[in-house]
């Protein structure tokens, strides 16, 4: 019996390693998906207030970004702007939140990509923490009822935006 015990003891260790190596440690599932999105009120870079409450009934795409987040934020900014222009007349709102950023650098980013959807800083990090943000870019797709339906970690593409937004637009308000 002892002869088999040592080789057999390797099996659970190998099993654990096989499981561990197949899991992406950077892919952290958000507990917020399916839950009501945390309310927020942000002052945009051009001085207007934007709140989740004021967007109730619309599909909201909440995007967290930073000007220092290269290349992912630079890749998705044009896709977000294109998608926003395509969907702005269809009860879809896009809100950008610049986190851990210098105001001037963030403004330059907005100008460089001609972003026309509202963008606001999160100076005390409260909105970031309320949404469990741990990196940039992260994007939350919020349905008309105000529930977080999907969290995208990493750049949003035109395809992903269209797929998620069309799905949420197809649901009753």
């Amino acid at each position: 019996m002892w002869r088999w015990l040592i080789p057999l003891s390797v099996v659970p260790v190998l099993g654990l390693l096989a499981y561990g190596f197949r899991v992406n440690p950077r892919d952290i599932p958000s507990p917020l998906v399916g839950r009501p999105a945390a309310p927020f009120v942000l002052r945009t870079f051009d001085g207007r207030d934007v709140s989740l409450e004021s967007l109730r009934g619309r599909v909201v795409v909440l995007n967290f970004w930073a000007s220092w987040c290269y290349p992912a934020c630079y890749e998705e900014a044009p896709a977000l702007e294109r998608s926003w222009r395509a969907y702005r007349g269809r009860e879809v709102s896009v809100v950008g939140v610049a986190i851990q950023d210098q105001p001037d650098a963030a403004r330059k980013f907005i100008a460089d990509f001609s972003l026309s959807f509202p963008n606001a800083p999160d100076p005390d990090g409260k909105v970031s923490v309320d949404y469990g943000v741990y990196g940039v870019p992260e994007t939350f797709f919020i349905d008309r009822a105000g529930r977080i339906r999907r969290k995208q970690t990493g750049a949003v593409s035109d395809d992903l935006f269209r797929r998620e937004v069309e799905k949420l637009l197809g649901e009753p308000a």
Partner: protein
Amino acid sequence: MRRAGLLALALAVLVGGRSVEARAPEAPRLATGVAAAATGPANAAPTVDEETVRRVAAQLRCVVCQNLSVLDSPSEMAAQMRAIIRERLAAGEAPEQVVQYFVAKYGEWILLSPREHGFNLLVWAAPVVSVLVGLAVVAVLLRRWTRPRARPATPIDPALRERIRRELDSLP
């Protein structure tokens, strides 16, 4: 006998695991001077005990760092998280409620020490189990190596026996 030994070992492993679970180390850390300085921004509410802020911050992972607590990290995000901890404590929340707020937002990933339930128990029990199994293996091997071996009686070659007898007889 051997089966009883195994049973005792399994029991010891279980008891060992339990005792670890019962201890549930909260791992409060001593703040370094730098970290302590970083936890005290100007908007600190005077009623909040900084030691409580540090104790909560020490349990939470700095979300933008590699394996650093919110207490130890010099990053801006960690400073903001410390400010949020302080603000929530000042608003009357218990330290556990503040920790729970972060868990609700980030999941248990935010905790530097995983909670002792379910699959997480493996993390707490595995070191103890490994040591116990190792000790058991060493004990078995030691016993095997040090046990005096009963040598089998080797049959003496009849020719040799005859030769010895002859030589003994020939002695004066």
